[in-house]
């Protein structure tokens, strides 16, 4: 792209100082030299803090991912069983909870303040939230690494971890809830102070949908984790295994829907920033977000499809998300997002054939490539496998096999994490105000990561279709009472998975190094726009 950034700096009635008006306290805001958008300095501080911790968690979880992946590759079989199970637990929590939640709090603060031209509601709430989340995350990680919580991320009772493990999760959950509250407070003061006119921007709307689902999710977390924590302290004698699963998945699956909402919002944002995309019909996009809020909570039942204690009609009704209306929402976004890019590219004259617009898209811009690859992986692999495996009866073939992680690594990693990586290619120059080094490497990083994740997910999925279990140290069952095992087909698939793991790790570590180098040692960006991708 020849311009610094595809969206035109808005024509503005600026005050003499050049600062945007709004409800910002004096010296509490700056104008972005690249986009012309106002940046609340308090929000900026917390976006930075949350993003840094997110990347630390990504690195920790990524190293664990490599070790775990190399253990499941039968020819390598790296770790001993103790460390394998320990690091599976560690990997799940750092990736699925810490990396993503810290990023999401940053995204919420950004969307509410910058896009609505308002200050952050409360600095002390932001500190409280951050401190609780950070101390909770550290407590969880330390407890796991000390060997006191080899219980997997799901910590299904009556498997018992040290009480600090549950306490840490409660701290993270409550801290996140406070951050979400700060987001709602910010929406409130923006509305009250009339910092914008009309409806909120689509990205803010999507972020709000994510925040609403997050509240419901975190309340489930409180309902299940507080008794379990008390049980680990021997205050409560018994926690029912079926009850725990029912409520825990109200946390576990719904938090993934928070991710979906946040990811789709990031798609819309990156589409706009990188190509000038504008949704054809915002009522459709917003309606789809509303469908998420209304129906996605039923999806937690997907984890209980072959459980005792819940009947067929309960399973079928919930599985269908009430007529698959949340799936409909994703299919709608799956149209509106690429369509908005297509319209924008065609308007710029890239009109040749069916896909001339796509070929001409800014594929060298890591913000765009990460966004569009995320869209494709989420839709074509994650979405299709998810709905199929989540079909009540088909789940008999898939429950607890590697097909399940095969599915969710293509939603939450190939989808959400990759989209967040794309976002980082703008967060670093625009919020941290630092230039990236090795920009050529940055341009190919999304491809390395995406290809690795796709290979890994497919390897997992196909291995799982032979019945290879997830979370399992030795699929050759050496030393077991009765021989069991898998044929060469499954082993080939596990090998393919292993290759994908290594490639994805290369992509991940490249990302982390690029971001760390830029944030701490990058050339400062002062009084000028960022260098265009």
């Amino acid at each position, binding site marked *: 792209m020849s311009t610094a950034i595809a969206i035109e700096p808005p024509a503005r009635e600026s005050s003499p100082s050049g600062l945007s008006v709004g409800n910002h306290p004096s010296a509490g805001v700056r104008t972005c030299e690249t986009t012309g958008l106002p940046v609340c300095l308090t929000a900026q501080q917390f976006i930075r803090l949350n993003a840094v911790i997110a990347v630390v968690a990504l690195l920790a979880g990524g190293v664990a991912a490599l070790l775990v992946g190399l253990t499941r590759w039968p020819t390598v079989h790296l770790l001993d069983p103790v460390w394998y199970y320990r690091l599976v637990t560690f990997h799940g929590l750092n990736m699925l909870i810490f990396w993503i939640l810290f990023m999401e709090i940053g995204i919420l603060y950004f969307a509410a303040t910058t896009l609505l031209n308002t200050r952050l509601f409360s600095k002390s709430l932001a500190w409280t939230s951050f401190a609780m989340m950070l101390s909770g995350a550290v407590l969880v990680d330390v407890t796991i690494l000390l060997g006191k919580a080899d219980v997997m991320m799901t910590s299904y009772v009556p498997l018992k971890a040290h009480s600090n493990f549950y306490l840490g999760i409660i701290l993270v959950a409550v801290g996140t809830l406070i951050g979400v509250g700060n987001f709602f407070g910010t929406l409130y003061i923006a509305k009250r102070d009339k910092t914008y006119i009309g409806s909120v921007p689509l990205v803010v709307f999507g972020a709000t949908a994510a925040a609403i689902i997050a509240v419901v999710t975190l309340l489930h977390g409180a309902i299940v984790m507080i008794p379990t924590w008390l049980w680990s302290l021997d205050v409560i004698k018994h926690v029912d295994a079926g009850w725990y699963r029912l409520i825990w998945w109200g946390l576990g699956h719904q938090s993934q829907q928070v991710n979906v909402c946040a990811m789709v919002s990031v798609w819309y944002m990156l589409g706009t920033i990188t190509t000038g995309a504008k949704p054809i019909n915002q009522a459709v996009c917003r309606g789809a977000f509303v469908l998420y809020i209304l129906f996605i909570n039923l999806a937690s039942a997907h984890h209980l499809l072959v459980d005792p204690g819940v009947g067929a009609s309960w399973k079928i009704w919930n599985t269908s998300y009430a007529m698959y209306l949340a799936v*409909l929402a994703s299919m709608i976004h799956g149209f509106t997002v690429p369509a908005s890019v297509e319209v924008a590219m065609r308007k710029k004259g890239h009109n040749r054939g069916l896909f001339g617009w796509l070929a001409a898209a800014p594929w060298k811009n890591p913000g765009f490539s990460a966004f569009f690859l995320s869209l494709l992986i989420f839709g074509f692999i994650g979405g299709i496998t998810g709905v199929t495996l989540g079909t009540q009866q088909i789940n008999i073939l898939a429950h607890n096999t590697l097909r399940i992680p095969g599915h969710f690594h293509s939603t939450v990693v190939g989808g959400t994490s990759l989209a967040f990586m794309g976002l980082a290619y703008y967060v670093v120059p625009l919020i941290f105000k630092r230039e990236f080094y090795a920009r050529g490497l940055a341009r190919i990083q999304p491809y390395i990561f995406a290809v690795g994740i796709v290979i890994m997910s497919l390897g997992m999925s196909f291995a799982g279709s032979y019945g290879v279990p997830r979370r399992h140290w030795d699929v050759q069952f050496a030393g*077991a009472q009765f021989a069991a095992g898998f*044929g060469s087909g499954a082993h080939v698939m596990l090998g393919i998975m292993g290759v994908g793991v290594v490639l994805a790790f290369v992509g991940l570590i490249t990302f982390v190094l690029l971001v760390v180098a830029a944030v701490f040692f990058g050339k400062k960006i002062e009084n000028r726009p960022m260098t265009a991708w």
Partner: protein
Amino acid sequence: MSIHVPEETWFKPPSGAERTWIGLALAWCLVLSIMMPYWHFKGKQNSTGDSYSVTPTAFGARVEQFVKTNKVGETNGIPIVEPSPGGDAYLQAQMWRWYPVLKLKEGQTYRLHVSSMDLQHGFSLLPMNMNFQVLPGYDHVLTITPTIKGEYSIVCNEFCGIGHHLMTGKIVVE
């Protein structure tokens, strides 16, 4: 733009290709919805969640009774048990074994009671690849009809501690 306040008239019905796609997607969602009740009535593979409350001790006693009545042999120190066709069979999951070994007849239907003595376990029948959750406190009744002869292994696919990967069992279908 997605990051700007939209025009005042943003609320309008979908049109053109977008509208067609929403219609198509909705139709597909209806197909997805109908498939499950259809299979529930017409299909042969369903997880109905048929289950009863049971304490591990009581379940263990039923398993012992079942083994004593129907034992036909022993392998690797584990009894081989042949339940009567159409009757009840019991399978006990515990860290880290499936007990006992079952001998079933092809084409016959059994009420297979599965429960756990300790943690959560995962019943995974290989190489058939059928998977069910096993919980302590729940007598999970699977009304199964083996359709193919052979020797099958049962592995555990719910993490149940350090010996998880050693937890195997056996079902023989004749």
